């Protein structure tokens, strides 16, 4: 498992050999199991930036931006408005294939790492991540200060599912770095992609990718899966359970 991951990593890295710096990363756990009493945990991402002979000697600052993206899903954001004295959902926007979990980490503020132009192109920062909306038949991302977009990010951030932290990446040595990836209790299950982008003196010089998986185990997950996949059986079992409980109660509490 580890060896294949490394092999894949090396193959991916071969492409960026000419770029003078190599990124080597690994997460502390490639498969996180969520048990019923899971209350959130933190994964650790380790990595190193390897320099070789072709690295320019005058290169000073190396910066890293880590993007973690959970499984993608369609989501609807709705806005309430006062109509006839009561608050009603009136307008909505559909977000297509957006990450259910999104975290952006860096070793210093995004604006210090690179120019706004490159930040936009490389999707650095929650304001620059592509969140495709369907606006009456058109598919597009909108300006960062769009009411629905910012409300969407705000609500996801409140639940701990979207986050950006420009000080989460720490360099242990000039080349060795680490960052924590916090996973809240209600973390969505599925495959998570991790993208590590390297910047030098404000220029984007390369990236590497890794991934981890979150799986839920236990009785609760079994119930949830059955409910979604075998609705009829699930309904019948629940109905039978209701009858059993009622019947048991009438026996236990029988007065005569």
């Amino acid at each position, binding site marked *: 498992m580890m060896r294949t991951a490394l092999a894949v990593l090396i193959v991916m890295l071969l492409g960026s050999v000419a770029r003078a710096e190599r990124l080597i990363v690994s997460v502390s756990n490639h498969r996180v199991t969520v048990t019923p009493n899971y209350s959130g945990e933190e994964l650790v991402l380790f990595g190193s930036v390897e320099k070789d002979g072709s690295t320019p000697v005058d290169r000073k600052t190396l910066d890293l931006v880590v993007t973690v993206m959970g499984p993608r899903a369609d989501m609807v954001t709705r806005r309430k408005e006062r109509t006839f004295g009561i608050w009603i959902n009136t307008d909505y926007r559909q977000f297509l294939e957006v990450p259910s979990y999104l975290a952006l980490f860096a070793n210093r503020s995004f604006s210090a790492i690179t120019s706004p132009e490159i930040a936009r192109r490389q999707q650095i920062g929650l304001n620059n991540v592509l969140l495709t909306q369907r606006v009456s038949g058109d598919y597009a991302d909108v300006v960062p200060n769009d009411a629905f977009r910012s409300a969407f990010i705000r609500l996801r951030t409140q639940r701990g599912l979207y986050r950006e932290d420009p000080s989460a990446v720490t360099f242990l040595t000039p080349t060795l770095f680490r960052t924590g990836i916090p996973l809240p209790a209600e973390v969505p299950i599925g495959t998570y992609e991790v993208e590590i982008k390297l910047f030098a003196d404000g220029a984007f010089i390369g990236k590497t990718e890794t991934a981890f998986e979150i799986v839920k185990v236990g009785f609760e997950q079994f119930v949830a899966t059955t409910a979604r996949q075998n609705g009829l059986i699930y309904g019948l079992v629940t109905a039978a359970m209701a009858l059993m409980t009622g019947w048991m*109660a009438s026996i236990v509490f029988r007065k005569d």
Partner: protein
Amino acid sequence: MQLYLPIADLPVNVFLVLAMGAAVGFVSGMFGIGGGFLMTPLLIFIGITPAVAVASVASHIAASSFSGALAYWRRRAIDPALASVLLCGGVTGTALGVWTFTQLRALGQLDLMIALSYVVLLTTVGSLMFSEGLRALMRTRRGAVPPRRTHNWIHGLPLKMRFKRSKIYLSVIPVVIVGILIGFIGAIMGIGGGFILVPIMIYLLRVPTSTVIGTSMVLTLVTMLFATLLHAVTNHLVDAVLALILMVGGVTGAQFGARAGQKIRGEQLRLLLGLLILSVGVRFAIELVIRPEDLFTIRELGVNG
């Protein structure tokens, strides 16, 4: 003890839910009702989405009405013929209700419709029941005999049928309509409908009090079982773990409630129930009128891959 609810997707304290089930069970045993109109709002209040609350409470009501129905069956206080006619309407109404529920959910107006139905239905029924209880109480104080009307327009309808155990001769049309109505609102609002059905059966259909509660429980039982099944198949929103905790608490509380209910006089009981229903309705009304904390909400439409 924290427990993770698989469908509601939320950790809850088992003892809190158990206590809620017992408290609602107590009230329902006391008044001889299912208690859905209290359980659903309570679940919404602790953070469970209205959709999951409505769907899960259905199975909880099925359990409590089954134990009730068994007791009434032993006492021969159920009219099988009347129950079957009611059920024809009830099952149709439930199917219609679940279908409407699914449509409203897709439109994003389900929560609003649940809240609106609660406001309209509960404030109306609550104030009617309250004023009726008040009048009855004043009559008994004065020692007057309650006025008794014998027939109304409903008894002039065609397709009449004889319901032997209830000793009534009644058209099936209003019975089926009542069944449809109860099934429909039950599926949308997560209530058994006993608190509406019993007064309708007594005042409009003139079903004698000896068979009215038992028969209404049969309707509640079947419509709620059917609603559980349909909600599970179409919307996948029934949380069996939540339902089981509620059931256990509910059936236990109901036994003690029933004992407490026997100590209180009928008029006072109706007055109290009216007040209770009214206050739940008003609570929902306030929620609709005040500005919500957040104007925006997100709903996930399912993870792809």
